[in-house]
């Protein structure tokens, strides 16, 4: 098979590819449903997923202009209430004035489309651009781990390539900033500044990833990942004959310390197993 010309690359499918080319093929290219359990305890995962979705919705409602007292009528859950109050108190301040919550930008690269769906995309008329991502995982990931994430590479790149369409003028890489804000550590957001050098590097790296994927698609041979420890959190484990049961995710977050066992709630397929 060949990579369909209308295929769109996102942070999520690129991350899949980086983690396991076979998973990318099954989930993103062939769209194969494989309804096994991703990890245990799955109910807790589902609860956190649901809470995360509700938090994102509240913020969206807030950024859309619905009065606070109206929004707060629907916060009946204690944990959500804590997150919400942290957000009100510590959400990034001094953001650019034009705000686009839940906003998607697209741009072309290496003959394919890149898509970035931002939690909050903000712009000033002078080109200053801050991308905010609300992270609702149990633990705050380490900075070096975040730095490696495809999201941290792709979002500023797409902003650099496409934000001019919103302003009618160029947005320089050094004017772009990516901010991760954590419900688990609301007072310490992680900020990544962008630069022309980083833009150059990201463009080259992501272009190469896309070309590599296109080559593999042509050959029809996406190999499974070499580190089988991560298969315990992959729904396709039985398809690849790499295990029977889902592994427990580590509630204490020690997995975050193991480079091979990253566990990111944003990467869990929402409730589809």
């Amino acid at each position: 098979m060949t990579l369909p010309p209308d295929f769109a690359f996102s942070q999520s499918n690129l991350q899949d590819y980086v983690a396991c080319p076979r998973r990318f093929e099954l989930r993103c290219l062939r769209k194969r449903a494989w309804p096994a359990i991703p990890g245990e305890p799955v109910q807790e995962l589902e609860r956190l997923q649901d809470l995360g979705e509700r938090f994102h919705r509240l913020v969206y409602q807030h950024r859309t202009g619905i009065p606070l007292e109206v929004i707060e009528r629907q916060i009946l859950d204690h944990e959500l209430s804590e997150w919400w109050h942290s957000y009100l108190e510590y959400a990034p301040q001094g953001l650019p004035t034009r705000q686009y919550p839940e906003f998607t930008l697209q741009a072309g690269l290496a003959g394919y489309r890149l898509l970035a769906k931002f939690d909050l995309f903000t712009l000033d008329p002078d080109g200053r651009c801050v991308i905010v991502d609300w992270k609702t995982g149990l633990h705050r990931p380490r900075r070096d781990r975040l730095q490696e994430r495809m999201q941290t590479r792709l979002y500023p790149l797409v902003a650099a390539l496409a934000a001019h369409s919103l302003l009618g003028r160029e947005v320089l890489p050094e004017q772009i900033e990516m901010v991760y804000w954590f419900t688990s550590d609301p007072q310490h957001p992680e900020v990544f500044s962008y630069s022309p050098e980083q833009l150059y590097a990201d463009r080259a790296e992501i272009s190469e990833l896309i070309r590599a994927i296109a080559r593999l698609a042509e050959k029809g041979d996406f190999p499974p990942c070499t580190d089988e420890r991560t298969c315990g959190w992959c729904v396709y484990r039985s398809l690849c004959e790499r295990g029977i049961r889902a592994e427990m995710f580590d509630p204490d977050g020690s997995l975050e310390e193991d480079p091979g066992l990253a566990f990111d709630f944003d990467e869990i397929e929402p409730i589809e197993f």
Partner: protein
Amino acid sequence: MDLVELSFEQQQVAAAPLHPSVYLEGPAGSGKTTAGVRRLRFLLDQCVPGEQILILVPQRSLGLPYAGALADPHLPPGGLPSILTFGGLVKRMVALYWPLIAEEAGFAHPGRQPVFLTMETAQFYMGTLVEPLLFEGYFDSLRMERNRLFSQILDNLNKAAVVGFQHTELAERLKAAWSGSATQLRVYDQMQDCANRFRAYCLEHNLLDFSLQVEIFTRRLAHHPLCSAYLSSHIRHLIYDNVEEDVPVAHDLVGEWLPRLDSALLISDKDAGFRAFLGADPAGAEQLKECCGRVFTFSGSYVTPPLMQRFETVLANRLASRPADPPEPELRILLQVRQGRFYPDMIAKVCAEVADLVRSGECPPGEIAILSPYLSDSLRFAIQNQLKSRGIPSRSNRPSRSLMAEPATRSLLTLAKLAHPEWGYRPGEEDLRSALFFCIEDLDYLRAALLTQMRYSVAKGNLVKYADAPPDYQQRIGYRNGELFDRLVDWITEYRQNPAPTLDLFLARLFGEVLSQPGFAFHRRYDQAEITARVIESVQKFRRGWVPAPDRPDISPAQQYVEVMEKGLLAATYLPGWEEELEDAVRLMPAHTFLMENRPAQVQFWLDVGSYGWWQRLYQPLTQPHVLTRRWPHDQRWTDVHEYRANQEHLARLVRGLVRRCSGEVRLYAVGVNEGGSEERGPLLLALQGLLRQMLAAEVQHG
């Protein structure tokens, strides 16, 4: 943008100035959507912010050409246009602004999240409310499946919402138009009572069926300052395709938007309105035309060859009883109806012709459509099987395919009952035999029967291990089969010690830990995985919106799900995404589905043209699609004359729509005895035969 390959008229539409609004009309195949897609590209090339463009279509499939255009990697970078149906827009707005309107809309728990019902979950809740009433004698004069009864009450609620009248007026409107026996008036009153109860129940439990979403949006949100400002700032440019297939309240909304939009292109298909039974209002589209400053009319066809166009004209004239010259002799080949005595004869002939077309290279499978007024399971199965045996791929987008009809679903639910003895549902021997036969890859039916007979006790609801059976018995079953059976038994035994809290979790575990492992039938089977995923999704949706019935407070959502599935109350399942279907496959579908897919075919096979199904509407004693519209005068009675006229118009419209989506030829088939065992000579067959007679008479006359 390169406009060279477009016609002059298409170029004019695509590159028209932003002001004034443009209305484009013309028959199917005249290049309207192509012009609309190019208009979209024109706007983006003109640096119109993509996120300010809305492409509105009445049905998801009709948005695919626009989605294809937006997938172009050479698109200018920027925000993305939205492609939405009116229903999709409504749901988004209701979800976003829920806290603003929940209380004033009358929901009992405005602080809690809303539960958006699917068609199947809405049917379930309607069922829980109506079933007790059936025992009180409601609808006792009707003989119909319960599902259809529930869906017609929901359909009425939807009609009230999309037409824009109070749901409490349903019976009054239907009664005012009724001209038959007085017993039907009581049926309408009972329907109204059920509709009212359902609405009250939804408000009490934060449930939002489609009708309630539409009502909340049109009556409360669309004009709320916050929502209105949001829509105004987010939608500056509109491309509205197939306006004629959309509902009146969607037309109202667009009518209000038009004066304040920066640009608008409305596209309407002439002689269409195929979704009238769902509330589509072609006359409303005509009214929108009046609000547009510029009107373009396309004619001709890029799809249908001249001979087919003449075929369409003579057939439509005949159906409309318009005087016309006899058909020209060249049409004879198109008017010929191939006869088969029984359905299997017809199916065999059609499949053989399809095979000839494909093998000779005359027509690829994707350019062939096999169409019938309805598509029963048996017809679908028979045709798909025959095509498969000839190596020809086919696809069937039948609007509602029962999940329970899938052996995988039945097997999963049988194993669920076995794993949950506390529910008190013990699978019967036949169910278990089928499940084992289906789930263990190489187990044949006889051995599955033997395993069931020897290792299962219906009374206890228990499986006993193969390893503990006598040696001669083990030999008959086979070691490998026995080992797999024991793995299943062990897994269930262990599971019973620590059962999953929800049915979807059970199913996901069963799938991942047993059925998708080597030796079991779901191993590396994407089709079975897909069905399992849909069952899980269906269970989850059911569970999340579940409200315990007052008379059965102890029943779990899992138990109730199994019950209602087996009763057929959750029969409707989700369609596969249209775009995910095989591209180069013979399309096997009801004629209406084909029309709404809006993708022409080179060769169309029309099955059973003698069937009245081509002409008359479905039996719907609780509703009346012609009366529950804005066009029907309140004080007028619906008579047989109206019915006859409506059916004739429906057939003429259907025939036109099909022929205009045919780039080669139509092949017609009739049967002596239909699927139900009776002989039918419906109006389509009579019209075709009448034309053929007229042609022959003219030939005789001219020597």
